């Protein structure tokens, strides 16, 4: 019956609209994979600077205490962050143009606010940690606050981001218990996890 398929179409359009009005669907999985690669490169550069003769997994209990090394690592982390965000924005606007929508819409604005609250809190908190010399837990704190930000913003993102958030939080807590291994956990959290989840999302949403 004709009327029947009409209702079905109505229900489909509702479901699609409700999702599209809340979720930032232009995000590309590829940007996750690339962000992960940048993070791994950044971690490799930091490793060559900080620990080089030592193996990255050799047993250590103390963390780096040299402020110059900390500043250099901070600069590397910032470069990774900026390059990742620009790549993400570029790919998202490409995807949006392709599907005839805009990157900057109601959903992406909400996403930004929901991400910003935990991220800015974490950023300020970590700056204070560094200022008072608690270098060992700065890297775990990055992972924890990033994870919290993803969980907080997950209604505006694809469902996978919630699990990525949980994983980052757990990883950050494990890393807190093992000071001195911050860099390797950082590389797993921002590098490996982004590549894995990015690939999953690329497979699911970008084709």
């Amino acid at each position: 019956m004709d009327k029947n398929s009409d209702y079905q179409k109505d229900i489909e359009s509702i479901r699609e609209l409700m999702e599209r009005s809340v979720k930032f669907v232009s995000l590309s999985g590829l940007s996750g994979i690339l962000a992960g690669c940048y993070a791994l490169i950044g971690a490799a550069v930091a490793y060559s600077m900080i620990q080089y003769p030592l193996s990255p997994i050799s047993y250590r209990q103390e963390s780096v205490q040299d402020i110059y090394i900390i500043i250099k690592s901070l600069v590397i982390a910032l470069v990774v962050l900026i390059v990742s965000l620009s790549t993400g924005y570029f790919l998202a606007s490409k995807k949006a143009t392709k599907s005839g929508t805009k990157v900057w819409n109601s959903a992406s604005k909400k996403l930004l606010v929901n991400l910003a609250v935990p991220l800015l809190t974490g950023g300020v908190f970590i700056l204070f940690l560094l200022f008072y010399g608690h270098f060992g837990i700065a890297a775990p704190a990055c992972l924890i606050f990033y994870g919290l930000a993803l969980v907080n913003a997950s209604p505006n993102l694809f469902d996978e981001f919630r699990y990525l958030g949980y994983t980052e939080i757990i990883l950050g807590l494990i890393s807190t218990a093992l000071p001195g291994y911050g860099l390797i956990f950082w590389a797993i959290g921002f590098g490996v996890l982004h590549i894995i989840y990015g690939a999953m999302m690329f497979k699911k949403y970008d084709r």
Partner: protein
Amino acid sequence: MKNPFENLDKVMEHRVRLQIISVLVANDSYDFNALKELLDVTDGNLATHLKALEREKYISISKSFVDRKPNTRYKVTERGRTAFKKHLDAMEELIKQQRK
């Protein structure tokens, strides 16, 4: 058994109105321009349907100024939310019945 057609909401039988309500149910509030962009309809068309929903008290309106430009935000009312749910249930019921 009662005829499920009776449970369909006359106001929401128009697709654009149904779409507006569904967006408002999923979000706290939505403004006119964002709705227009999302639904891909003209100003006049959207305004007419919003008026119809407002008349039924399915949505509420708040006007304010952002950067000195007028900004109109829409919210779904409890009445609208209940009506939306009832309408969806009726549609599902109809589909189920006709599959048999």
